[in-house]
């Protein structure tokens, strides 16, 4: 089997999506840690367009953008399917994946902002959560039903990081009485054995993100 390498950084929620997908499929890979303040020549060669992580390199061929990578993984290693098997349910899954990509940005913006801007991004993030709670998840255990799938990986990284970012920014939006379905879901998500094994430690993440936020604020 051709070699699989993942270029990434361990603070990145986007990188974790890929790690979870590879682990769920039992695909061995080599992790190549990237210093984002000093990007390697190899990273720039593999992702000349965006110069970002994650990049999955399979048999020397690079795939970029986390959700594009996830669909690539799903199609290349069909065991333990992470997408439904009929076109309509797949369309629904892809809808929510795109929603996560487009609207999840609010959470990253929260991390980078203070004052009025923080209030604005919190409002955006709240709206995103409300839509997912009401329209996306409902009463289901996971987004596709009984089993974990790509949509869960997309939102899992957003919500897990949100819980830490709330502490970092000193705010609270993801309240259990407002989002009972999502709260139940994130607990189910964290208890999936592969995920449990491969979740960044919340305390370590908090310390690292606090430092990063301070650096960002200082250079603003």
């Amino acid at each position: 089997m051709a070699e699989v390498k993942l270029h990434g950084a361990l603070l990145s929620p986007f990188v974790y999506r890929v790690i979870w997908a590879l682990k769920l499929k039992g695909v061995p890979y080599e992790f190549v840690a990237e210093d984002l303040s000093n990007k390697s020549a190899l990273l720039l060669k593999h992702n000349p367009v965006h110069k970002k992580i994650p990049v999955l390199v399979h048999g020397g061929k690079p795939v970029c953008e986390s959700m594009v990578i996830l669909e690539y993984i799903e199609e290349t290693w069909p065991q333990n399917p992470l997408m439904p098997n009929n076109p309509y349910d797949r369309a629904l899954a892809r809808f929510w994946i795109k929603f996560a990509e487009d609207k999840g940005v609010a959470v990253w913006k929260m991390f980078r902002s203070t004052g009025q801007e923080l209030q604005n991004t919190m409002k955006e993030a709240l709206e995103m959560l409300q839509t997912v709670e009401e329209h996306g998840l409902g009463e289901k255990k996971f987004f596709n039903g009984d089993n974990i799938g790509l949509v869960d990986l997309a939102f899992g990284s957003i919500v897990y990081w949100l819980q830490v970012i709330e502490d970092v920014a000193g705010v609270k939006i993801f309240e259990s009485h407002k989002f009972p379905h999502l709260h139940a879901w994130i607990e189910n998500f964290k208890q999936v054995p592969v995920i449990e094994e491969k979740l960044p430690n919340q305390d370590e993440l908090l310390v690292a993100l606090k430092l990063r936020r301070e650096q960002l604020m200082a250079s603003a």
Partner: protein
Amino acid sequence: MATKVKVLGFWCSPFVFRVVWALKLKGVEFEYIEEDVFNKSTRLLELNPVHKKVPVLVHDDKVIVESFVILEYIDETWPQDPLLPQDPYEKATARFWAKFADEKLMQTACKSTWTKGEEKEDALKATMEALEKIEGELKGKSYFGGENKYAYLEIAIGWINYLLPIWEEIASIQFLDPKRFPAITAWKSKFLDNPLIKETLPPREKLLIYFHERVKQWEIDATIRELAETKLEN
């Protein structure tokens, strides 16, 4: 077996065109329903409660929204004349570039029309950089899909061929310099000559009038936003 396929759309939307082109290429019959996006119907709001936008594809009782999601649904449901390649790596590459064109090109090109001064310069620069990357992807090929003129990327990125020239004229700027983008220029010419595309595109005059008004509105919206921000700061 007759299945009912409907498309809710807006006459000049690049997102809607993707869906129309895909269905026509595959020979799928459908009913087109024009929506007034400035005065949205109850039907649209019920079918797409999350985004309240077109295009919406209705296939029997199934509702699918978001143009790229719809394209993949169409490709999987009607497998004749496939849009996406079979190979996962080539598929990933097609998805990557479709996403890139929407995220990095459409926004910046549009912005170039209604912004002024430095903001306009920045938007224009970003647009040209995005076009350069797309030019690189097209180099040496007749179509993004190699020799397949009906591939996913032709449909996904085809909007630049009818929309960018309109925006160029309205804002008196040039995006598609043939000297700088020979591959895109050649592709554009073939694309616009394709009878199937020709029969779907609205008249140029109509597009110019419509976007002339839109650009004016976007300029006004920007001024209002600026005033609101200044008020907040003071």
